[in-house]
């Protein structure tokens, strides 16, 4: 099963595609490539937007500074921001993907007695991020015309819901558990862990701050 078939199949026939990938023992490298491609491009596009904002700021302050800053700085910004954000976005998503897969796998295996492996969950959940290409299309629509931004929002929401659905199917197929249990493992459990972590950090931060500055 080729890379393109896996990407397309994940969207239109996720159950069949995930089952075939499990049978073939698909490597996580394909999933890694898909995530790197989608989120690298998304980060790059976001970086271009920030570069545009930064350039607009420099352009407005340029006359104050004797015209010294713009457009020389703009040329550099155009390349620096997209590359930096592309790499940063990929690294952050990779981390998030790793942690979420671990939580999903732990919950499915320990709580619901699933039979899948972490590598299977990790691989399938990587492909589950495919709908995020819609966010890139939405961003491009926004650049085309600001009036198309509601459509960009619609595409973004669609991507999120579609991805959640695919994450659940990924756990369901790899661990052979019911859809409800897979939903708890793939969505509720990771979200709960992130919420607890966030709450803990919010509580701990002032204490740590107080400890530092005393």
């Amino acid at each position: 099963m080729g890379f393109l078939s896996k990407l397309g199949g994940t969207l239109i026939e996720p159950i069949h595609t995930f089952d075939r990938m499990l049978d073939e023992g698909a490597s996580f490298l394909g999933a890694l490539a898909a995530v790197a491609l989608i989120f690298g491009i998304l980060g790059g596009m976001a970086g271009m937007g920030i570069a545009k904002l930064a350039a607009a700021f420099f352009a407005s302050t340029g006359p104050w500074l004797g015209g010294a800053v713009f457009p020389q700085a703009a040329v550099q910004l155009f390349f620096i921001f997209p590359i930096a954000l592309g790499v940063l976005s990929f690294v952050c998503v990779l981390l998030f993907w790793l942690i979420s897969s671990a939580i999903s796998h732990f919950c499915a295996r320990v709580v619901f007695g699933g039979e899948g492996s972490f590598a299977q969950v990790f691989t399938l959940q990587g492909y589950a991020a495919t709908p995020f290409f819609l966010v890139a299309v939405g961003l491009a629509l926004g650049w085309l015309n600001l009036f198309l931004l509601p459509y960009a929002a619609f595409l973004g929401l669609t991507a999120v819901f579609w991805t959640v659905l695919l994450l659940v199917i990924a756990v369901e197929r790899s661990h052979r558990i019911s859809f409800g249990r897979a939903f708890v493992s793939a969505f509720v459990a990771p979200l709960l862990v992130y919420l607890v972590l966030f709450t803990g950090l919010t509580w701990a931060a002032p204490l740590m701050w107080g400890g530092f500055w005393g």
Partner: protein
Amino acid sequence: MKGSPILGSVIIGLLLLSLAYTAASVYTAMGVERKPEAFREYALTKPRLVGEVVHVQFDMTVKRGGVNMSFVEDAGLLYKIIVKGNNIPEPSISYTQMDGVLAVKVFAEEGEFEVILGSGQVYSLAVEVGVGGVSVRLTEDSTVDSLKLHVAYLGGTSLEALEGASFNRLELRANTGGIRLKVERPNLQENALVSARVEVGGIQLESFTLTPPAGGRLTALVDTGGIALNSRGFQVVKSTALESEIRTPGYEEAPTRLDVDLQVGVGGIAINQPYSLGFP
């Protein structure tokens, strides 16, 4: 599963198309691919005038923008003004000549100006910028009687008086912003004064050196803020957080003296400090 590879290709294609379209939009919107900057040049040389010119009073006002002034070894050049940028309004330049004195007046609403002055006459210079920056470099080709740089509202001034530069009085004023100064072994014909004042902001004196037997004295005064002083070979007469005075040894007996007077309302003064230290 027949449609899957096609759909996969569509996904990759849409991703790349989105990236390419965004890149092209941002590239165009940021003006990276701009038309080359236009240049306009206004110059006056001695052969174009009747009668001798020994003194030039150069008075320039720019409401928004930058002025970069320097001197070249050209005895026949009185001034050359280069205006950079597209769609910049035409500056108003006029001059009158009387008894060997050429009075030049330049006014511009906005723009970036390169002003090049010659070496064959004495200059009295006054440059005022509303919002923006002024940078002046005095070298051995410059003979300046007085120089006034004034940033009326917001911006910065940079002045370098380098080895061999000849001047009597340099006066720098900035309302909100900064002044950067560098005085390195100027050619003092008589006692001279450098005076700098910023209402809100800072003054950075990068270096202050003199060629013996010339003597130098530096006074710094801050109303609210602080002074970072590195006396670097000077005798310290006074050094507090808000007031400092340093002198070269034998200042009182020196045949020619240079007094540097720095004042800041709210902000700081850094004297002979590395730039990264900033103001206290």
